[in-house]
């Protein structure tokens, strides 16, 4: 369910972010409670809570006292923005480095992209 590479709470946070981006979770929609999350994924509730509080800190979720956690109204936009900014540094640049290593020129890449447009 969760892998060994990073803390589960980060994986939880990333999972929820993905759901928001993909539209599975809509803005102002209520998220499962930490206890429900814990029971569903068979993890300690404190871990789920940490994931949620990370998202609250990042503005992706907000808390309605006595009711639960909800997706922030501007969450999707915020996440898209962040992903956009990191896209070139984390996805494109490594791709270019790999291309360089195996001898593929930028022109070749552009041509390929042209076909895919």
């Amino acid at each position, binding site marked *: 369910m*969760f*892998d*060994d*590479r*990073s*803390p*589960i*709470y980060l994986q939880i946070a990333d999972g929820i972010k993905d759901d928001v981006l993909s539209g599975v979770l809509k803005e102002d929609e209520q998220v499962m409670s930490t*206890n429900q999350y*814990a*029971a569903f*994924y*068979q*993890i*300690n*509730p*404190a*871990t789920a809570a*940490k994931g949620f509080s990370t998202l609250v800190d990042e503005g992706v979720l907000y808390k309605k006292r006595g009711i639960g956690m909800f997706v922030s109204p501007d969450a999707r936009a915020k996440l898209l923005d962040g992903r956009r900014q990191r896209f070139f540094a984390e996805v494109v640049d*490594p791709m270019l480095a790999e291309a360089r290593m195996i001898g593929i020129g930028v022109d070749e890449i552009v041509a390929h992209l042209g076909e895919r447009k």
Partner: protein
Amino acid sequence: MIELQDLTVRYGDTVAVDHLSLTLPTGKIYGLLGRNGSGKTSLLSVLASYRKATSGSITVDGVDPFENAGVMRQTSFIRDTLDVNGADRIAKVLDFAARLRQGWDAAYAARLLEMFELDPRKRVSSLSRGQRSSLGVVLGLAARSQLTILDEVYLGMDAVARTAFYRELLADYLDRPRTIILSTHLIEEVADLFEQVIIIDRGRLVLHEEADELRGRGVTVTGPAAAVDAFVAGRTVLGDQHLGGVRAATVYGRLAPDEVQRAQGAGLALGPVGIQDLFVHLTSTPAAGPRPQEALR
């Protein structure tokens, strides 16, 4: 709050727990990991008031638990010997618990018996190893003690029974939070349930951390020996393997993204280290070598 200060447990010349200090806030699920002979059971015995420490102090919510009725009433210690009358039938064992334990939930106990497929008419002495463990789980969970200590209760239980146990444990904890200390060898199976992990080795504390922080706390670096040597220089290396000119080093610590790129650039392969492997590495430094806690500095 459970506080251990400089706790030492000695049996004649043998030191089982060596000046151990630990602070455990109540209400959490703790995983206690340690090899056989690490002092785990002695530590748990002291916590449960089954044994007095040789020196040092232990307090549970400010009081010494040893022979303290208030603390002992609220403590359940389940170990493989079960500490019940072997000649009794299971029903009688549960009846005894119901009479003696204030918070005992008989209905819950009955449900658990069914879940583990235990026949209340069977005598404890006639149970298989796995069934005894299941009974131990029933006794530990149905008591709902504020301090529940389960010492390797899974021994002999098959995977199905263990899964049921973990599921029940979490469900009941979510319903009624309390302090639960689980000692186990089967770390990978149950690590997700821990809030904090305590590792002890040779009577000393090796590590006490949030369980989740341990995930990704180790990296295996594999590649040509020279490149690996260069990369791991200055880092804490927990384990090593060589095959021909290839070296695989297990490094303690997390790599930053730029370090990851550097490693990949140097032609090194990086792999995750599960908590179980981390535990093995942290507790298997040979007796003559540096102690694990020193290795972590």
